[in-house]
């Protein structure tokens, strides 16, 4: 009889752990909707189509670093023929804001803040600090 107490207690604990996300989300009133991102006002087109950027922007940045820093090839020719400097700060961050754009999605899906920001700074942040 005492065994049954432990076994059922353990089973209850297991079911609790297995359904943990439901309890946690219920407690935090989790918002299932993704963040509404503010798109840049002065640019209509990114360096690649939306579908590609969504899934592969990290790969693009890594390729840029490789070819710009290590292969001395600093200009990116986009799919529509436009050219951009291969630079996180000069290209990406000239339109996008780290906190308003990168971080919000990264936080939503729980993608870790990558080590880009160990060296790069958000220019918008720098302006605020200078004042």
């Amino acid at each position, binding site marked *: 009889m005492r065994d049954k107490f432990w*076994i059922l207690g353990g*089973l209850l604990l*297991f079911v609790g752990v*297995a359904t943990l996300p439901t309890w946690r989300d219920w407690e*935090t009133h989790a918002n*299932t909707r993704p963040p509404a991102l503010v798109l840049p006002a002065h640019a209509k087109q990114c360096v690649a189509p939306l579908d590609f950027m969504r899934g592969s922007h990290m790969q693009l940045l890594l390729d840029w670093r490789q070819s710009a820093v290590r292969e001395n090839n600093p200009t990116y020719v986009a799919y529509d023929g436009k050219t951009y400097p291969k630079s996180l700060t000069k290209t990406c961050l000239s339109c996008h804001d780290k906190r308003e754009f990168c971080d919000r999605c990264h936080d939503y899906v*729980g993608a870790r803040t990558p080590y880009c920001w160990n060296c790069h700074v958000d220019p918008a942040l720098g302006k605020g600090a200078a004042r």
Partner: protein
Amino acid sequence: MKALVPLAAILGVAGLAYAGGLLPGTRALLGVVLPYAAMGIFLIGFSFRVVRWAWSALPFHIPTTCGQQKSLGWIRSNPIENPNHKAGVAARMALEILLFRSLFRNSQARLEEEGPRLLYAENKWLWLGALAFHWSLLVVLVRHLRYFLSPVPAFLPALDAVDGFLQIGAPQLFVTDAVIVAALLYLLARRFANGRVRYLSLPGDFFALFLLLGIAITGILMRYFTKVDLEGIKQLALGLVTFSPLVPASVGPLFFVHLTFASLLLAYFPFSKLMHMGGIFLSPTRNLANDSRARRHVNPWDYPVKVHTYQEWEEEFHDKIASAGLPLEKERTRA
């Protein structure tokens, strides 16, 4: 044949799920109905089996041990391999569950040609493969919590950082992704390479391995190669656990293969040998203290049995035994 049928089944499921992920009509079925049904079967089935184990009879005290039992004070006993107390049992169970102690003791018999001699040698590979697989699976499962929780707790990005400490590629290579596939391939190869293990293997053994490999491979494909819309997947996962399901249009067919495999694993779990997850806690040969010489264990399922003792028998035939000149217990004890 024992491996081909499960492999064909897994590939068939993959094909159906991929096709279902392309057709608008079946996306809700695969993305909403199937996960809920699978989780229901898993929770109810798992509970049912554990409750049935809890109610089954355990008439005898049957720990199996491999160390010196506690006896006289001057004989050194082994309190973990041969526990005589609850604390020892807890330590033994922890070693078994967390470190697979009994697999570490695995030895393999081999017939040596010259002689012929039967040799027993240590074989730690099974232990290493099993340990690598199970711990990787745990880390992978915990990492997946980031799709189900909002806001994401801080320890999950920290875990990702540790798991991705090699900093290879973008998104970063997770060590557990590589380890789990390597371990599963070893566990699979072992069932083919060793003749005796191959003979012992059942279709269910291969099915579980192929299914887990399928889950790992589709996950790896999505993360490192084909790329997916994480935002949509997070919406789908969050919707499932908060009971407001939706299937975003941006979620591709490969994700449905992954999700269908995971649902299949959950639904298959209670009917399979995978129940060792719960069963290991309920193994009477492991979770009992070896104290049957110190304490009397009475079988609680005993019922009164009508017995005829020797004393009663002697009483009954006393005269006949005495006249035949045979010794009588009664008189011997009196003398």
